[in-house]
């Protein structure tokens, strides 16, 4: 479903972020991408959503060849993907409800459907009672749950989570990871970029390990090993 084929990403002609990266991710997989800061985790996610273009190589997502998409065609691609960020990236001027609804509105879904779906998903992440609150009135864990609700509401084929627990304490971290596992069990592919050893070792799922822009390990039921 997702294929990286000999992908290179070089910034400013000199700093190499990714070096000949190839991997394949199948539908319904839960894959963790691990590595130190600057190893290229975020670059992989940015390439996948077309925020950056690869210097060399091909990236496939379903029917799309991402590296060939024009700026105008990106919104359509991104409606197949749900993204969760370390810094939440909620819209500050919209309530929790509106933030979640926004992902459906941009896809042009009818209002009646939005009114049905948003409370359901907010209920699933346990925030129905905070629907009318603005992001600055929510705690970090709550914000991230709103972000997850937004990422999953349009039933994307893939959820990308870029260090989703980076700003959270261990309790909320476990909460978020459990949510991601729940989403994965419902049939959505999850790609989790993290450098949190605890998480990786407790998951027991596929791990792709990056070092200096290269894939140094790709194993089923992987563990966090960095030398």
């Amino acid at each position: 479903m997702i294929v990286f084929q000999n992908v290179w990403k070089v910034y400013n002609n000199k700093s190499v972020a990714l070096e000949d990266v190839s991997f394949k991710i199948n539908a319904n997989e839960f894959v963790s991408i691990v590595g130190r800061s600057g190893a290229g985790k975020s670059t992989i996610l940015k390439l996948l959503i077309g925020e950056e273009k690869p210097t060399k190589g091909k990236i496939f997502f379903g029917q799309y060849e991402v590296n060939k998409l024009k700026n105008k065609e990106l919104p359509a691609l991104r409606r197949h993907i749900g993204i969760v960020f370390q810094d939440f990236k909620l819209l500050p001027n919209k309530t929790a409800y509106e933030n979640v609804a926004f992902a459906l509105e941009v896809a042009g879904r009818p209002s009646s459907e939005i009114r049905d779906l948003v409370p359901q998903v907010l209920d699933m992440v346990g925030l129905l009672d905070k629907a009318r609150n603005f992001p600055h009135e929510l705690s970090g864990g709550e914000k991230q749950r709103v972000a997850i609700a937004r990422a999953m509401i349009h039933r994307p084929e893939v959820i990308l989570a870029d260090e989703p627990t980076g700003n959270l304490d261990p309790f909320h971290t476990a909460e978020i990871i459990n949510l991601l596992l729940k989403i994965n069990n419902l049939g959505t592919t999850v790609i989790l970029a993290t450098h949190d050893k605890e998480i990786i070792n407790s998951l027991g799922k596929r791990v792709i390990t990056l070092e200096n822009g290269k894939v140094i390990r790709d194993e089923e039921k992987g563990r966090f090993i960095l030398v």
Partner: protein
Amino acid sequence: MFTVIWRIIYYGIKNFWRNAWPSIATIGTMVIALSVFLSLILFNVITKKAIELIQEKIDISVYFKPTTSEDDILNIKQSLETLPEVKKIEYISRDKALEIFKESHKEDETILQALNELDRNPLVASLNIQAKDPSQYALIAEYLSSPNLSKFIDSLSYSKNEVVINRLVSIIHTVNQGGFIITLILAIVAGLVIFNTIRLAIYSNRDEISIMRLVGASNTFVRGPYVVGGILAGLISALISIIIALPLVYFVSPYLKIFIPNLNFFSYFVSNIFLLTFYQIIFGVLIGAFSSFVAVRRYLKN
């Protein structure tokens, strides 16, 4: 499609309302800039009226020889009236000239006495000619000095006033041209001020714009609400600028009337208020929408 347009308008209004402070700041700047624009329009009206007033005062008088018959004079008047440059001709007969003369010297006993002692009217008949444009007096004077006309004519006031008329013509020309250039420059400045204000307001929203893009919003969907907001700010600012101008014009109007009696500034303003509001709205809305459109574009790149 309809859902998308409706959502764009809904969000435009809602964001405008929720970001009350930035919106008020934008409106404040726009009101000032639009007021400059409005005062430019009004200033042009005032100068136009003042120039009209000066032009009314300029004319040339043709004094005929006492031997010229009234029929000849009226023939000449008729032929002059066919000239495209001529706006208005007034015929002053010898009797009327005497009347005017007596009227203007009624305080002066000696002159009146001297007049009474003469057994005939010493004054000559004349034509007062007004041109449509002051620069055309030279042409009319030239026409009058052609040989078949000049045999009836005693003198032309133009030759005496030529220098003054030419100077007035050049002053009027300069005022018209200078007024246009100043209007243009200030209108551009007003436009740039609005553009920059909106650009700054949108700059502070750049993170939001990138988030919307990441969630899969199309460029139209991201940009639309900002353009709606710009239109809204333009509309509100236009109305406020007119409301502010109304009492100002009311107070200034009587003072202007002293200098320019043919201008009733306030009634001009009131009777043209819909047209003026329309100009303001067009200027405000166009520049608001355009500025938002351009300002957002820079953040839609990735």
